[in-house]
């Protein structure tokens, strides 16, 4: 905290001679408290789990190439689908977007030397590897088989040990998420350099702020639900056992009260990433700064009141179905505002066709499509038909793969030079983009049709009439799996041998580009002074007289 109160521009006391200016490779495997090390630890660990979850997806698509259950036995298939979902959400997107980019960038963007609570930060990260180990270890006990939602009573009666390990794993990542969120809120509120006005705060930090508030409100509810479930499984309680007076629908409320906002936990930081990448690569100020900042907060608030749309076909009374139809539809408005603002940012720009920009614009297209199908799912009458079908699978993969994963890739291409001091190869980046874009659409677009026609999700065997469309999806999944190869080779090769990046290869104006690449320990030799806003492209710096509404907050 003392660091935040350093007067701007005061030189740091001369570092002691033995004080290292850069970390050694083995520091990345220790309980290091530097936010940059922790950010990279998060990103690399999460990417490892992405590969694990991806292999599960490939195995499932191989199974679904034919209508019969011939590749995996049905219980193993269910274990794969449960763990695929869990890993991708809890160990890939959320940790990579919030833990990885958030930790790496927030202190750099607000001009701080570290997060507010560095040890808490390291502790939050180190809860993730055991969580992942528990999940993967659960396969030795049959694997949790009741889907990532783990609705009782199914989760009470299948593979109890594996299910308990699954619960403990989620509680660990949930705890990590709460610790991280607290840290972000305090860091942004208290450690922003004094010369940075609220309306000069990079939009990524606004997004992380909204995300953290959402996580702080909703995560404990999931933890409560899961712990009650754990008690039911292991200690003979009957919160969710219908034959002993329990209520299975209560679990669904507790679960979705977190897990719908989890969708925003996955996408809000990515919205922040988009708001950083598009202006830099289009050489334009972001269009509608305030609208984008406010809409993050609006999504955070409204996002807490939409969870029941996952339960329209469940034990939901009529008034609830209607209330949540309308609140769900309303989320489309702030989301639309963001999308229109990014499109408007492209107008009149000088757009660079970098890999980061391609992924960002690819995200715009794909996420937009996912948003449109989301509106149809928000209305109860249509949702009743397509709930729990491949239409839903198509929708959330457009949002989470076409949205979050594209955003993570965009962020990696954009900030890799800052993190490693070296450039990624742009040619292979573009190959990666093209393969990913084709693979994603080929895999997930036909699924809309499958769902509308009547194929339920989470099935290892299905009606043979759906076989031809499923084959198409499976081919797409293989393309998607293969698309990771050029990326992985590019990352590994460029990290050690890529051309040197320099401090500011893209010409960015936010604070992280004012320091060395990679940044030294404690980020700057002298704390930076703000000379421009983060998006002052193409003209004189914004004049100071519109000293905005943000100061009141």
């Amino acid at each position: 905290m003392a660091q935040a109160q350093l007067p701007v521009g005061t030189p740091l006391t001369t570092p002691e001679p033995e004080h290292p200016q850069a970390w050694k490779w083995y520091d990345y495997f220790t309980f290091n408290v530097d936010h940059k090390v922790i950010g990279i630890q998060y990103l690399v660990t999460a990417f490892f789990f992405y590969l694990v979850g991806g292999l599960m997806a490939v195995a499932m698509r191989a199974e679904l190439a034919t209508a019969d259950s011939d590749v995996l036995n049905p219980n193993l298939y269910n274990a794969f689908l449960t763990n695929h979902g869990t890993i991708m959400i809890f160990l890939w997107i959320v940790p990579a977007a919030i833990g990885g980019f958030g930790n790496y960038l927030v202190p750099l963007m607000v001009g701080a030397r570290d997060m507010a609570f560095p040890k808490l930060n390291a502790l939050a990260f180190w809860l993730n590897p055991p969580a992942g180990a528990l999940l993967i270890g659960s396969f030795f006990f049959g694997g949790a088989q009741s889907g990532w939602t783990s609705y009782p009573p199914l989760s009470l009666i299948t593979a109890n040990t594996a299910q308990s390990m699954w619960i403990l794993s989620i509680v660990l990542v949930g705890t990590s998420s709460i610790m991280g969120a607290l840290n972000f809120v305090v860091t942004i509120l208290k450690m922003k350099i004094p010369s940075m006005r609220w309306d000069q705060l990079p939009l990524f930090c606004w997004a992380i702020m909204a995300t953290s508030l959402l996580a702080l409100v909703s995560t404990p509810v999931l933890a409560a639900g899961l712990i009650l479930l754990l008690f039911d499984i292991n200690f003979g309680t009957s919160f969710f056992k219908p034959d002993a007076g329990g209520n299975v629908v209560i679990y669904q409320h507790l679960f979705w009260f977190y897990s719908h906002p989890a969708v925003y936990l996955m996408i809000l930081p990515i919205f922040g990433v988009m708001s950083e990448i598009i202006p830099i690569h289009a050489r334009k100020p972001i269009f509608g700064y305030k609208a984008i900042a406010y809409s993050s907060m609006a999504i955070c608030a409204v996002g807490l009141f939409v969870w029941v749309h996952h339960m329209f076909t469940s034990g939901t009374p009529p008034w609830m179905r209607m209330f949540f139809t309308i609140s769900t539809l309303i989320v489309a408005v702030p989301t639309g505002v963001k999308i229109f603002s990014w499109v408007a940012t492209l107008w009149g720009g000088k757009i660079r066709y970098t890999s980061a920009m391609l992924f960002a614009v690819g995200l715009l297209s794909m996420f937009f499509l996912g948003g449109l199908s989301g509106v149809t799912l928000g209305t109860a009458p249509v949702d009743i038909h397509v709930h729990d079908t491949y239409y839903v699978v198509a929708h959330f993969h457009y949002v989470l793969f076409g949205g979050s994963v594209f955003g993570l890739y965009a962020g990696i291409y954009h900030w890799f030079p800052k993190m490693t001091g070296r450039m990624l190869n742009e040619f292979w980046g573009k190959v990666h983009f093209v393969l990913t874009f084709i693979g994603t659409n080929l895999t997930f677009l036909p699924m809309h049709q499958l769902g509308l026609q009547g194929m339920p999700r989470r099935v290892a065997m299905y009606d043979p009439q759906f076989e031809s469309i499923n084959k198409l999806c499976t081919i797409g999944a293989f393309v998607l799996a293969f698309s990771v190869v050029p990326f992985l080779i590019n990352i590994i090769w460029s990290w050690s041998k890529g051309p040197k990046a320099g401090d500011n290869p893209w010409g960015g104006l936010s604070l992280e580009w004012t320091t060395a690449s990679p940044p030294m320990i404690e980020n700057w030799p002298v704390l930076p002074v703000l000379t421009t806003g983060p998006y002052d492209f193409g003209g004189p710096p914004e004049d100071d007289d519109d000293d905005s509404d943000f100061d009141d907050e």
Partner: protein
Amino acid sequence: MEQIPGSILTLAAGVVITLLSLWASQQSHLFFPEQASEIAPLVDNLFGIMVGIAVAFFFVVQGAIVYFMIRYRQRPGDEEDGSPIRENLPLEAFWTAIPAIIVIFLGIYSVDIFQQMGGFNPGDHAGHAMVGHKHSAAVVAQAPDMNMTSDVPMLLAQADTSAEVGFGASPENVGKPPDVMVDVAGMQYAWIFTYPDSGIISGELHIPVGQDVQLNISAKDVIHSFWVPQFRLKQDAIPGIPTELRFKATKPGAYPVVCAELCGGYHGSMRTRVIAHTPEDYQAWVQQNTVANAPQESPVLLAQAASMTPENRMVAGHIHQMGITPETLAQLHP
């Protein structure tokens, strides 16, 4: 860019996109399986309207993205920044207001459809208890060797209370008892259909076309979800919470009944059929099966019913494991 050609182009694009979205909304029914219930056209129309709106938005936004990406790409040697436009309040108000109006319209429209579907009247089925009681004595008579596990009575007792969730009577049928009532029980991995009026127990659902049918849905073990894609209807079968679906089939034929909620390893094989008969055929079916369903034969029939589809053969053995004997079924209608 001259003013007039620009606005003519915009106008032309607007007309083309409008026509395209109207055409798309007309074509959207092609995505769906055939419409076999009274509410299916309502749902398809709502979806069609959303498809129309979505197509218009899609072309406007994607068109803008593609156009801007080409028009405003960096030219070789041009290292300048773009124009420093930060905001435009009228434009932002416009694109906030338009989607807001659209979603409010869609919200109101879907409430209306929901009302016509009978979404606001579950539990409105005068006569259920009476019909249930009429039958129960007969079935209990089939049950000399009751051997129930302790948790069964509680579950089944709850199953008889009136459903508060699901789809009930459509507005014109409020207060009227349904023409046909069927008790639907989901279990791993089969649906059992019991007709309280005639005592028929079946593994396939038989209903008459054009009559008001009510399904009283319950679950024996885990959550299942009763879905007939051609009817556009789905309702979870929840242990301990009775639910219902009330609908009118419009087209004779055999349609799949799918379990949509993950219910265990063989969830994908939990499939059966609903057969919509003409009213005469339905009466004939009832006649035939009421005779066949003499008490001493019912366990056999039950086993046959449960193993109707090849994938469901394992269920035959499973039924006894689950404690699904005629006497437990009898408990569904005390």
